[in-house]
């Protein structure tokens, strides 16, 4: 065994990436996240991206782990180590490894000679053979292969064996049998690598202190937590990838935190009551209908869905906009159009959500970049929806929603008071001569509403048909326009209330990059890399729509301004241009829309190729 030290030349510490090629449904996910979690526990910035098929069992699936001491953990496209566990994809996986990289494969069977590359090192581990020798049950023999390769990776990249072993023990704390076989498999893989390869490889981990105060969480869990903390009580939803886990988590959290004990329950009654009601609807139309009904009645209510669900909800979203009913819609975006690629990511619902429904409509959008923002923006969505009495969309995506991210711990301010907006109760009504639904607008053009069940004086008739400011049916042009003109101003008034853009300046930059949501890390890394290549850039990440005036100003202040986003049609660029009036031809697009999370290389290449063309 060679004893390596960090001082050794050509050794990279905490800066590499691993790609694991598996067959889905074989239990690889737990082994892969075990590795990622172990790196996180060693205090090193890390990301894990699951690139999975829309299938339950038998198709190729990949997991990518990127370790980066500087925190640049967007998707890497250079793989130092390939764990090739799927013979069906050997060729493409082996081709994916960077020059000088390594391929770990199951050497129970020989590798075809034509797959070999001279510029990579092949590490054969007889995983199947070892597992057949050591485990009896057929399912165990398959499952333990995963933990065994994880054991080999532990040795290869210098992970703390005891730490990983401890994590496994935590996972299987309640199942002694599984705990033992997992530990056994981990040790078998680890030992084989130690005995047969030079461990660790020239890229490896070393413990650091960059993740203290951080957690490992996916965006869908964080979103559900936000809805819990915001005080949402009614949810309507329809199962859809990649949003389903939002409601799964909300259900689980409510069962834990929203059960109120009942003193002296009646015979046959449970000893608690649920302070929530989650309705699995027959479709997304019904789901949003339920949300509108509940919000009309004064409950905080939301739905979670993805693009196809938004398409179905369009009709009632227009009703909510026009009749001024709060609604929170979480859109965990996936690749469209139509069914598209349900397990791939994209940011292609921006325009759909901004202008959802027929007729003149405009909605409030929030763009979280990571699970922490999912938590915070979910809470803000309810405040904005009730303050502005209108639908609010939180546009997460599959990458944020379904992958584990390292983010600073979530914090909660116990002095938070929900902004329930302008709601008149019976005491308010008693002081009034008359109540009309769409009169008495405030500075934000919001008019007070009443809730069903309030005094007769506050009773009014909601209608999606043409209405005047008194809420009465109208076909009169002036009366109709007076209401829709106020709605336009109300929407514009929301601009300073949505999360402000994040702006970072570089000295002497004449190039600006505007981006949003899950592009954040890749673009930040690109800014860093471009600076190293002599191109100074300023960075703006928009976090909400309607846009504040800073967005247009940022575009104006830069000689060249790029908009980086994950869709084919440059939807953010269009939205900025339509809404701020900034000429669209002066905004240059860098687009990635193949369905995989953005990487810095795509941004750097896009920016440089445009600048080169220009010069």
């Amino acid at each position, binding site marked *: 065994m060679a004893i390596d030290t960090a001082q050794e030349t050509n050794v990279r510490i905490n800066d590499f990436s691993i790609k694991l090629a598996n067959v889905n449904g074989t239990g690889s996910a737990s082994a892969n996240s075990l590795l990622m979690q172990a790196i996180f526990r060693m205090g090193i910035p890390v990301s894990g991206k699951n690139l999975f098929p829309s299938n339950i069992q038998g198709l190729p699936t990949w997991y990518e782990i990127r370790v980066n001491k500087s925190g640049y953990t967007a998707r890497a496209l250079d793989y130092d180590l390939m764990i090739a566990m799927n013979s069906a994809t050997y060729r493409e996986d082996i081709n994916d490894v960077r020059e000088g990289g390594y391929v770990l494969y199951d050497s129970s069977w020989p590798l075809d000679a034509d797959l070999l590359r001279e510029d990579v090192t092949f590490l054969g581990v007889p995983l199947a053979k070892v597992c057949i020798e050591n485990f009896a049950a057929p399912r165990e023999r398959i499952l333990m292969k995963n933990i065994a390769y994880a054991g080999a990776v532990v040795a290869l990249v210098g992970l703390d064996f005891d730490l990983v072993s401890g994590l496994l023990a935590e996972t299987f704390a309640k199942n002694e049998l599984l705990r033992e076989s997992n530990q056994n498999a981990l040790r078998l893989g680890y030992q084989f690598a130690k005995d047969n390869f030079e461990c660790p490889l020239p890229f490896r981990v070393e413990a650091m202190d960059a993740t203290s105060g951080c957690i490992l969480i996916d965006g869908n869990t964080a979103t559900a937590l936000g809805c819990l903390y915001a*005080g949402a009580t009614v949810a309507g939803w329809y199962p859809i990838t990649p949003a389903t886990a939002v409601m799964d988590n909300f259900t689980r959290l409510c069962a834990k935190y929203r059960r109120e004990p009942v003193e002296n329950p009646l015979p046959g009654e449970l000893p608690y009551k649920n302070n929530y009601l989650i309705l699995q609807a027959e479709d997304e139309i019904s789901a949003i209908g339920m949300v509108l009904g*509940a919000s009309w009645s004064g409950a905080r209510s939301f739905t979670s869905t993805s693009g196809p669900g938004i398409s179905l909800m369009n009709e009632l979203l227009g009703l909510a906009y026009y009749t001024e009913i709060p609604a929170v819609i979480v859109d965990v975006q996936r690749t469209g159009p139509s069914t598209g690629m349900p397990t791939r990511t994209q940011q292609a619902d921006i325009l759909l959500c901004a202008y959802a429904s027929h007729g003149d409509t405009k909605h409030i959008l929030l763009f979280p970049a990571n699970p922490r923002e999912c938590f915070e923006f979910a809470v803000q969505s309810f405040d904005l929806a009730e303050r502005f009495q209108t639908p609010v969309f939180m546009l997460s995506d599959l990458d944020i929603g379904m992958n584990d991210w390292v983010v600073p711990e979530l914090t909660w301010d116990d002095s938070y008071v929900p902004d329930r907006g302008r709601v008149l109760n019976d005491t308010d009504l008693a002081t009034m001569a008359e109540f009309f639904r769409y009169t008495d607008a405030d500075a934000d053009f919001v008019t007070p509403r009443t809730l069903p069940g309030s005094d007769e004086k506050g009773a*009014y008739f909601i209608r999606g048909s043409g209405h005047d400011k008194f809420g009465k049916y109208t076909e009169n042009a002036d009366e109709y326009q007076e209401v829709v003109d106020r709605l336009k101003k109300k929407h514009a008034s929301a601009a300073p209330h949505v999360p402000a853009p994040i702006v970072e300046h570089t000295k002497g930059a004449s190039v600006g990059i505007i981006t949003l949501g899950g592009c954040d890390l890749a673009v930040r890394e690109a800014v860093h890399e471009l600076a190293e290549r002599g191109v100074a850039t300023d960075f703006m990440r928009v976090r909400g729509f309607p846009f504040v005036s800073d967005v247009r100003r940022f575009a104006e202040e830069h000689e060249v301004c790029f908009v980086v986003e994950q869709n084919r049609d440059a939807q953010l660029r269009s939205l900025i241009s339509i809404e701020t009036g900034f000429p669209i031809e002066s905004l240059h697009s860098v687009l990635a829309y193949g369905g995989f999370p953005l990487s810095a290389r795509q941004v750097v290449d896009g920016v440089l190729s445009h600048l080169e063309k220009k010069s």
Partner: protein
Amino acid sequence: MTSIAKPLIPLVALPKNDLGLTVRDYEGAVSTLCAGCGHDSVTAAITHTFWELSMPPHTIAKLSGIGCSSKTPTYFVRGAHGFNSAHGRMVTIATGANAANRELNYIGISGDGDSLSIGLGHLAHAIRRNVNMIYIIENNGVYGLTKGQFSASADIGSRLKKGEPNAIAPIDPILLGLSMGATFLARSFSGDKAQLVPILKAAAAHNGLALIDVISPCVTFNDHEGSTKSYRFMREHEVKEIETDFVPIRKEIHRAVDEHDATEITMHDGSVVRFRSVPEGYDPYDRQKVEEYIRDRRSRGEIATGLLYVDEEALDVHELNNTPRYGLNQVPYEKLCPGSAALTTMQESFR
């Protein structure tokens, strides 16, 4: 869909209910439907029912979809909160409203186009969930607002004013309800207020979704010779074998006319529905027998009306989900937010 306010000063002293309100207090704007429209009779029956039940107007929430029927909530109980939603979606809104506040009295008005075509899926699933509400289908077999196309309830052989007779099978909301697990099913005729009012009262007392299919002729597009939803056809083919009285809670029970036939159902709130007359062997608790009876009548070209099926034991959407007895919109925020300490603790598992 313009609405005209009614003058509020009565010419003669009107009787008052327990709240001191007259029936005029339960009215709404003047109807803009065609003169003679069956829907206006349904509106009158609803108005009368709520007045007789002394239901405080502000505790009523009235909802509708789109179509002639869906215009009618404007015409009753002006003191109630109302929601004229989108075509076919009424019950999705009602479900959400009920989820948030179970303490109000929900009445949804829909039509055969609204409920049996565009909103059929929502109706079916609202029945399954047993949302506590009155759900009225004002059924005329025709699309009125778009000037006379067949709806999904049009019978085979029924004719429009012009064109070919209908050749495809109708959807009967009562038979649909029986197969979806409905807990209250009634059919009535807009021309028979005496029958409809007790049914509406029983529906209001019912714990769960009370579906009432009211045959309500369209005088403009579907009241001609050859229509099976006309006044004349209904007068000639209606079979009113199942007649009921509604006995409110704490009121003296009047003796039924045919005492030997009387079957009583105690509703969730303690009021009583008394079947005044039912055919021999008819059992309003027996899903299968009720279906056989309706199919048998139908095969003879007859339309059985009355309170056809009741299941007062079933749990409604809130009981199924074990929510508090009061509205979820009343739960104070302090009880809903687990707070910062819980957030810190739970994040220990996120490492």
